């Protein structure tokens, strides 16, 4: 039916050859390439000439990081225009580590290395000497220590500590060498560090001035009042915010820093201390300026992108927008790249297995019900109507490129078999008593299920409409109600909904082992509804929520092993046990995975890879070296 080749590609197996081989390895440095000469963007020449900036060699680290461009050595200059809220697409954070292009690796970035010892209880990080903040200060172990001790562990600023860091300490071995010491083995912390960019580092030299541990609280309070913020805490938040940079010019590690900002527009300029160069010794990034514009709605974003108004965009676009983008490609001088979303299922249907109402809980906990619901879905129809037939109908499980993947996980109860579904429902005693075409609960009362959901990210609305229609065809009526994000969060957290949906991210190797919350009740949040009260039980050490049955306790057990072990084989084994349980029990129901996502790239923007994964797991563009993208100066472009 479908082109084999196309299928292979869309299945998520973007081959290694899609990207430069060096992207899969720790980056080389200037000395390894043999670079001795470095160049800078001409826009900085004046500042260097007048002495406002030191020469480029002095600004770069001792041994600059070499980033290899996707296609070609770029040219300096230009202004990229992007949507507000998409800034990080061109301005990736400068963290110690970064995520590899296939979402399996965590690669050193500003760190030279990170090594676990003591059975995963100690992580020693060696920073590259001479990496600087955008104000010229050196990045040192102090900055990590400050973040952990004074931001992460200050209960006024961060009310609750990230679980992995609870009880951790930092030990400095020198300006560029330090160790995290954890209370228990945290071998997955490196993945976390890579995925979260620059979350665990802060400019200590700058922030001390605004922190009560270093500056008089009363003075801070006074200053807060003058600024019109409520207290020193909020004041610190504003100062430290990467969104409110303008007033304070908080130093950054990313390629760009803000120069002007209003509530609707902002302008960013290259960071003169950015520590990376291209293989010819040109300091990155290539593009001098980024301008962002605030656009309120996704609809206008896609309209603007389709008329060629932005250099790079993709966030908030929908699969259904693809024809629009394709239609105006030539006319408006851009290309539409189709990047798959690395999600186990674009839409995952979750019944509330810990529903407060015992009647419904009983039905939802019956594996026959969940299997029947999964078998009743005509995934091919969803694929045809919503995905142009170009995505992968599958059960919820990890993406195919994952080391935890087995094909049978994706096939489990994913075929369309309404007869079998009806049979299963009949077996359960869910039969249509009054002959209105809708099944009643075994007690003869109406089976009243409401699906509450919020939109965004993936084609949720059409999928929900189709799937509930499919369920209606086997006699299970599900009411739908679209609710606000805020409400989704409250009700999912509290486990109050009958059922809900989300997009099943965290199904690639970078996040699956850390947060396998689709499969294990280890997290309470807006996304997973299915296990909420079991998860609360687990997180509270058995004091709150609801005690899970043994099979669920088994899942938790496996995960406990998985997250602590440094043995890769054991980790994969545990992961597969967990996923096999999902394939057997269909804890939640997947429909279509690896959905095509439109990424709109202006023709003058070069070095953007044709292929990539688009989503939370990859942090969108981050693994694909946006710092090496450049603007071809306007000439006759084809």
């Amino acid at each position, binding site marked *: 039916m479908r*082109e084999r080749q*196309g299928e292979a590609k869309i299945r998520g197996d973007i081959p290694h050859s899609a990207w430069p081989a060096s992207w899969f390895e720790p980056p080389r440095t200037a000395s390894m390439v043999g670079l001795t000469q470095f160049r800078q963007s001409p826009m900085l020449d004046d500042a260097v000439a007048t002495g406002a900036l030191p020469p480029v060699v002095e600004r770069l680290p001792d041994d600059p990081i070499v980033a290899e461009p996707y296609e070609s050595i770029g040219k300096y200059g230009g202004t990229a225009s992007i949507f507000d809220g998409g800034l990080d697409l061109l301005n990736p954070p400068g963290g110690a580590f970064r995520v590899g292009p296939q979402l399996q690796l965590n690669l050193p970035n500003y760190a030279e290395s990170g090594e676990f010892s003591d059975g995963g209880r100690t992580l020693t990080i060696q920073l590259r000497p001479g990496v600087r903040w955008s104000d010229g200060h050196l990045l040192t172990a102090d900055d990590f220590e400050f973040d952990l001790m004074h931001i992460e562990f200050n209960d006024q600023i961060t009310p609750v500590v990230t679980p992995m860091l609870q009880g951790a300490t930092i030990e400095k071995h020198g300006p560029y060498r330090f160790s995290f010491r954890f209370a228990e083995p945290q071998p997955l912390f490196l993945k976390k560090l890579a995925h979260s960019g620059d979350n665990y580092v802060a400019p200590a030299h700058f922030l001390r001035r605004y922190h009560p541990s270093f500056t008089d609280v009363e003075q801070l309070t006074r200053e807060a009042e003058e600024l019109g913020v409520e207290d020193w805490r909020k004041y610190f938040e504003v100062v430290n915010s990467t969104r409110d940079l303008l007033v304070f010019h908080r130093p950054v590690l990313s390629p760009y820093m803000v120069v002007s900002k209003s509530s609707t527009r902002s302008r960013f300029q290259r960071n003169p201390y950015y520590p990376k160069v291209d293989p010819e010794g040109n300091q990155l990034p290539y593009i001098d300026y980024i301008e962002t514009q605030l656009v309120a709605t996704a*609809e*206008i974003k*896609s*309209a603007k992108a*389709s008329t060629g108004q932005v250099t790079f965009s993709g966030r908030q676009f929908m699969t*259904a*927008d*693809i*024809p*629009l983008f*394709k*239609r105006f490609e030539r006319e408006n001088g851009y290309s*539409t790249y*189709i990047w798959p979303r690395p999600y186990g299922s674009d839409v995952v249907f979750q019944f509330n297995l810990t529903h407060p109402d015992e009647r419904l809980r009983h039905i939802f906990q019956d594996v026959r019900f969940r299997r029947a619901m999964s078998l009743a879905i005509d995934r091919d*129809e969803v694929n*045809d*109507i919503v995905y*142009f*037939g*170009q995505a992968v109908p599958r059960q919820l499980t990890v993406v195919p490129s994952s080391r935890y993947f087995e094909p049978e996980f994706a096939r489990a109860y994913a075929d369309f078999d309404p007869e079998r579904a009806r049979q299963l429902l009949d077996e359960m005693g869910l039969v249509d008593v009054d002959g209105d075409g809708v099944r009643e609960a075994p007690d003869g009362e109406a089976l*009243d299920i*409401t699906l*509450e959901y919020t939109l965004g990210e993936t084609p949720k*609305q*059409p999928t929900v*409409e*189709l799937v*509930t*229609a499919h369920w209606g065809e086997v006699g299970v009526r599900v*009411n*739908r*109600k*679209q*609710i*606000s994000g805020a*409400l989704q969060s409250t*009700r999912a957290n509290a486990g109050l*909904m*009958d059922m809900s949906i989300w997009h099943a991210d965290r199904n690639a190797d970078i996040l699956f082992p850390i947060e396998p919350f689709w499969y294990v009740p280890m997290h309470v949040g807006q996304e997973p509804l299915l296990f909420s009260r079991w998860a609360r039980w687990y997180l509270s050490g058995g004091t709150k929520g609801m005690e899970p049955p043994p099979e669920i306790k088994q899942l938790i057990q496996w995960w406990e092993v998985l997250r602590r072990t440094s043995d890769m084989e054991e980790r994969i084994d545990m992961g597969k046990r967990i996923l096999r349980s999902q394939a057997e029990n269909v804890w939640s129901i997947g429909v279509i995975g690896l959905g095509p996502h439109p990424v709109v790239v202006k023709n003058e923007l070069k070095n953007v890879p044709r292929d990539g994964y688009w989503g939370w797991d990859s942090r969108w563009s981050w693994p694909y070296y946006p710092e090496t993208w450049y603007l071809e100066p306007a000439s006759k472009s084809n």
Partner: protein
Amino acid sequence: MTQATPPRVEPDAGPDLAFASQWRLMWLRFRRHRLAMVAGVVLLVLYFGAVFCEIIAPLGAGQRHRSYVLCPPQEVRLVDAAGDFHFRPFLYGVKQRGNPSDWLREYVVDTSVVYPIHFFTRGPEYEMWGLFATNWHLFGADEGAPLFLFGTDELGRDLFTRILYGSRISLTIGLVGVALTFFIGILLGGVAGYFGGWIDIIVQRGIEIIMAIPQLPLWMALSAALPAHWPPLHVYFGITIILSFMGWTGLARVVRGKFLTMRDEDFVVAARLAGTHELKIIFTHLLPSFLSHVITSATLAVPGMILGETALSFLGIGLQDPVVSWGVLLQKAQNFQAVVMAPWLLLPGLFVVFAVLAFNIVGDGMRDAADPYAN
């Protein structure tokens, strides 16, 4: 200026006669307002469609066609590609052009496939007014025919059919809402105007307060407060109540003003002296005396309700699929992509405009007709 005062009614002629002749006069005057008559006919047609949508619609409202997603409107033809005339209308087949991996869903007419149109034919089964099941349709074509007079939506559902079904909700929401509005408006406005004093002050303040709060936030808050598990019918009434909650203030003001001026008129005073109960005075003496005005206002208030329903749907806080209403249908059309790639999705908007226009014009005609001093 021919001193054309209406015939003075003798006191013993009784109010009924005056009443009847007032309506007759109104009708006579209304009939002369040609535009209003046309608008009236448009409304009748729309409501006819709403009442008999199951029969008129060739397909089911929820019926999907997976190979005709966002298919443009198809032409019903009498003349074939060769130029020959046929008495039986027919459709040509439609197929997608190009490769699915082009990502462009474009359709071309396939003249090699012909689907004749049948009248009074069997089609998808439905339950007429929830009373009995049947499958008779006014017209239809063979299964799989692209009988999409207004094209299809993003799930491949026939828009013509859905607009018809949608009119049932959209056109009644106005009527039900206005009825509610008027109940509240007349009650509160009447009470305030008739009794005056502190009751009046309270009602007046209440009106002022409600009018002072911007409409959208009130809508949002109220609709967010509708319980999640409510079935569609309850939501429908909930939305209607929300819409009416805003609407009554204007009418209450008018009614209050009328009552204020009328409560001291002779016939009211006479009734009061005769010991008639106050409420009875309101309903038997005051209300009928400006009923024509009230009905005219009602007609003019319906459009606000219809538009309100679409605005709520726009904000995603109104009715939701699977309920089919014009607002729900328009939700799919509210982006640039629809305007460019599938403009037929805007057709429900045209129906909204038509209905609202017609109501306004009819109301205008009624106002002219009801005004005894009209030229």
